[in-house]
């Protein structure tokens, strides 16, 4: 019995191609049943996310099974295959390695992201519930989840923020701990500040205030995000209530100055204030960072931290590969199979 994988991902195909082969959740059970009926397929799992569509199979005749996988994918999508096709195909060790890398986040757009593990678990659960998995794929996917767990706990691949939004959230949590009691103010209803505020909202901040020169825009954004709109002129008198201040106005001068923040902080020496300046030119006077209890980060410093996090993750890839290699050997021993030959079915292989 061998493990096979046919698929396409963000590395091998653009989104307009990927979406043609995607298997919506509603159609998953039917698709699994249909695929399992194809010649040579003994067991199967379909992983379909926004970044990848992958068909896994356990088969005793890998050549025949691989052809079936390709036929199923192309026929189901109705797309006439073109050369080069967007698919990658793996068998034996390569397919095992591929899934282990996928669940570990090594194949993800953002290295080390953990969302994919949940998506693969869901896909496997659906396949198991539909009765399309058995001994081999059950063991294969369970092993993959163990690999993901070990990689996550033994390495720093998932640690450290890698985007401006995640840096902001992580910094806020390192200042306040739980964000559920934090009050956030957005100055300037721009797209970047909105994204940052959404990241904070996802961590459960208590209240959100939105202020914009055009009050109607503030009202609209506040309504959209479940916050409260306040008049721009009112902001200065509300700083003392805030824990986090996100600023991204189009003002050509400093909107938040040392002169305004120093008295606020002297009134609340035990309560920190996290200021995030996403504007260019900057909205917040740099010397605000000198005020005790005030922590100011501009867009460059946030990006630098995100970059630093990404570098750390890249350095961890080798360590992850070592863990994966050990699990591949162990899984091979279990599978009791020798290293398989390449399938005869002619598929242009695009190395991820």
């Amino acid at each position: 019995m061998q493990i096979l994988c046919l698929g396409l991902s963000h590395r091998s195909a653009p989104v307009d191609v990927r979406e043609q082969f995607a298997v919506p959740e509603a159609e998953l059970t039917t698709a699994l049943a249909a695929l399992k009926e194809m010649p040579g397929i003994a067991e199967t799992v379909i992983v379909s996310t926004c970044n990848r569509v992958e068909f896994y199979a356990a088969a005793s005749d890998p050549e025949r099974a691989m052809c079936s996988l390709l036929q199923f994918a192309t026929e189901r999508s109705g797309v006439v295959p073109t050369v080069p096709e967007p698919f990658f195909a793996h068998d034996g060790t390569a397919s095992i390695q591929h899934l282990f890398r996928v669940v570990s986040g090594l194949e993800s757009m953002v290295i080390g992201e953990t969302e994919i593990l949940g998506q693969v678990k869901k896909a496997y659960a659906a396949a198991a519930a539909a009765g399309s998995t058995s001994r081999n794929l059950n063991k294969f996917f369970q092993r993959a989840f163990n690999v993901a767990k070990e990689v996550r706990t033994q390495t720093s691949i998932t640690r450290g923020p890698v985007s401006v939004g995640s840096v902001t959230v992580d910094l806020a949590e390192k200042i306040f701990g739980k964000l559920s009691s934090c009050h956030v103010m957005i100055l300037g209803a721009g797209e970047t500040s909105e994204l940052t505020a959404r990241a904070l909202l996802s961590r459960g901040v208590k209240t959100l205030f939105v202020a914009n020169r055009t009050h109607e825009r503030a009202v609209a954004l506040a309504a959209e995000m479940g916050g409260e709109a306040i008049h721009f002129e009112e902001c200065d008198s509300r700083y003392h209530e805030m824990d986090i201040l996100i600023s991204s106005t189009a003002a050509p001068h400093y909107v938040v100055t040392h002169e305004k923040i120093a008295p606020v902080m002297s009134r609340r020496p035990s309560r920190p204030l996290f200021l995030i300046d996403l504007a260019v030119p900057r909205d917040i006077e740099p010397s605000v960072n000198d005020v005790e209890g005030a922590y100011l980060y501009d867009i460059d410093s946030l990006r630098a931290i995100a970059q630093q996090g990404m570098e750390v993750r890249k350095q961890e890839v080798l360590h992850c590969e070592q863990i994966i290699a050990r699990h591949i050997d162990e899984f091979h021993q279990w599978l009791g199979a020798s290293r398989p030959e390449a399938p005869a079915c002619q598929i242009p292989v695009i190395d991820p």
Partner: protein
Amino acid sequence: MDRLPLIISTLCFLFGFAATVASLKAGHFRPRRFNLAMMGAGFLLQTVFLVTRGKAIGHCPLTNLFEALIFLSWAITLFYLLIGPVYRLSLLGMFTEPLVFLIQVVALLAPVDAGHPVVFPPHSPWLEFHAAVSVIAYGAFAMAGVAGIMYLAQERQLKTRRLGVIFFQMPPITDLATTNVRLLWVGWLLLTLGQVSAAAIRVRVGLGVLVWGGAMWLSYLLLLLACRRLGPRRVGIFSVALFALSVIALCVLNHFSKGVM
């Protein structure tokens, strides 16, 4: 020979600290495992030593500076084991271990275990209670100092925006500030209990001892009362400074306590 458990316990703290530093450098730090095991083993061995010594001298082992320092190390480790897991203070062990290691090394190497200058009269449980509670109070102050150092380290990284290896492993600064103040309160209440018990049994001490003890008690009280106005950064600095003074005070008190009873 009775020092063997103590020597092994000192090595436990050293290994725990070294392992944490090594894993931090490698980027694989995982709190609450090896670190916690080393602290737990160190604590057990400290306890074995103190019990053995206590049985040998027939009193609470607080009869000379050596024993007082080991008792202090034991109290610090006890507070770490109590508050570390409760407050999920990752890396607290990394800051606690070198402190305990240093105190024990000084105690083991310095000639401070000569004789037993403090003599507890027979059947004096309250006197021993007073001495033990007072040293345990300093254990709480030590941990407050450790929390203060961690706060200052974390605050500096946030201010300078240079987030080092330990930044994401450290607790939030607000948690550290809260822990710092709570430990100060615990220490102060225990110290008060020690002072009250001393007054109740009418322990007579020299003027120097009285002034030092009173000054430390009052200093911590003033710090606690001024916490809100000072802000967490200054409270952190004062916690560290006052603990350093406390250690000096402990040595001085121990020196002058000869013949107290």
